[in-house]
């Protein structure tokens, strides 16, 4: 049970850290000062969620501490969604990805706030509010891009088409034992709510929902795209060059 629970924590922590790191890559490159602050704050929320989840996982015996879990595991040990490790692309891809993920996590964390595990419930209760805030920010941008200029519309639509094959992985089954014990929600049960949010925002953004297609998979089993290894190499370089260093 403890291994299963750690596995759940690591999946969700890896998701948050990988997307948090990707968003942090925008620091210094955002299209406006407000958006610069927004992207950095979004990253901070996600990295904060990751820290809480890693710390709890370490307490359950998954590793020495949160730093070891974040900085000393290789790409095959990461179990994040492939969607989140893809490069940022242009601003439309960054926003579309944040939107698709937050629309799922908003519901996931809300359900997980009722978890039988008190610590996970407490982390979820916080993360839920952050995910709702992220969802609003991303949705507002997506509407502005989709219903904006010809170019912003084209780029937003292209971003959705690019990311769509990676959305199926969010709904892959969670650990059945943990779901049965009411420790975490079953992702498939959150699909309808996700569809409603996505369809409503895309309609307002005058964007088309991409056609259903074959879905990419593998992140949860540690089989990643070529991009994760490169990202981790950058993210982990300082920690690996100076083992045990403290701020």
């Amino acid at each position, binding site marked *: 049970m403890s291994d299963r629970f750690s596995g759940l924590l690591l999946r969700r922590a890896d998701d948050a850290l990988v997307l948090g790191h990707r968003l942090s890559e925008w620091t210094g490159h955002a299209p406006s000062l*407000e958006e610069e602050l*927004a992207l950095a704050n979004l990253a901070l929320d996600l990295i*904060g969620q990751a820290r809480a989840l890693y710390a709890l996982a370490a307490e359950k015996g998954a590793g020495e501490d949160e730093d070891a879990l974040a900085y000393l595991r290789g790409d095959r040990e990461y179990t994040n969604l492939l969607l989140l490790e893809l490069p940022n692309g242009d601003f439309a891809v960054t926003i579309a990805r944040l939107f698709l993920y937050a629309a799922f996590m908003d519901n996931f964390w809300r359900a997980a706030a009722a978890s039988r595990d008190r610590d996970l419930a407490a982390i979820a209760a916080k993360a839920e509010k952050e995910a709702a805030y992220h969802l609003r920010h991303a949705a507002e941008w997506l509407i502005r891009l989709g219903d904006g200029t010809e170019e912003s519309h084209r780029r937003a639509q292209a971003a959705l088409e690019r990311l769509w094959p990676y959305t199926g992985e969010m709904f892959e089954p969670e650990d059945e034992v943990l779901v049965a014990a009411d420790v975490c929600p079953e992702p498939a049960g959150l699909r309808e709510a996700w569809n409603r949010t996505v369809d409503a925002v895309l309609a307002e953004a005058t964007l088309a929902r991409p056609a259903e297609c074959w879905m990419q998979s593998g992140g949860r089993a540690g089989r990643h795209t070529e991009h994760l290894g490169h990202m981790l190499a950058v993210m982990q370089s300082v920690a690996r060059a100076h083992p045990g260093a403290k701020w």
Partner: protein
Amino acid sequence: MSDRFNKARQVVSLRERAWAAAASVVDPEIPVLTIEDLGVLREVVEGEGGVEVRITPTYSGCPAMGVIAWEVEAALAREGIAPARVVTVLSPAWTTDWLSEAGREKLREYGIAPPGKAGRRALFGDEAVSCPRCGCGETVLLAEFGSTACKSLRQCQACREPFDAFKCH
């Protein structure tokens, strides 16, 4: 007075001293608020291993938490309270409803609009926030993300003054 009674009094006072020391620590990003005002200071217990001060994090990514824990340790050490340790507790999760009334008033005086009641909002619903300077209820959101993780940036429609608003969390 029996020795037992004196000893019991002493035990209470050590805990009270530890609470007072910890409660004097301020938020490094909003120095008008103590961690007691914020609701970050949860409890102080005395056990076999000494005094344990329990604090709870606010926003998941709040970078002030590390500094707060360190400042509490320093405050306890200054009071000569040892052995003591600072422990982070997650449950129940902190919300802005933990902010004390005194804390809300201090925020307003400092020029930061205090948060409304925590709760779920519609995807695009805006919240009613009054200007902390002139009290006007008509204010608009300038940026959802402000100078720290806990604040957004708004502007008053009456006095035109931009101001920070504590996000509802």
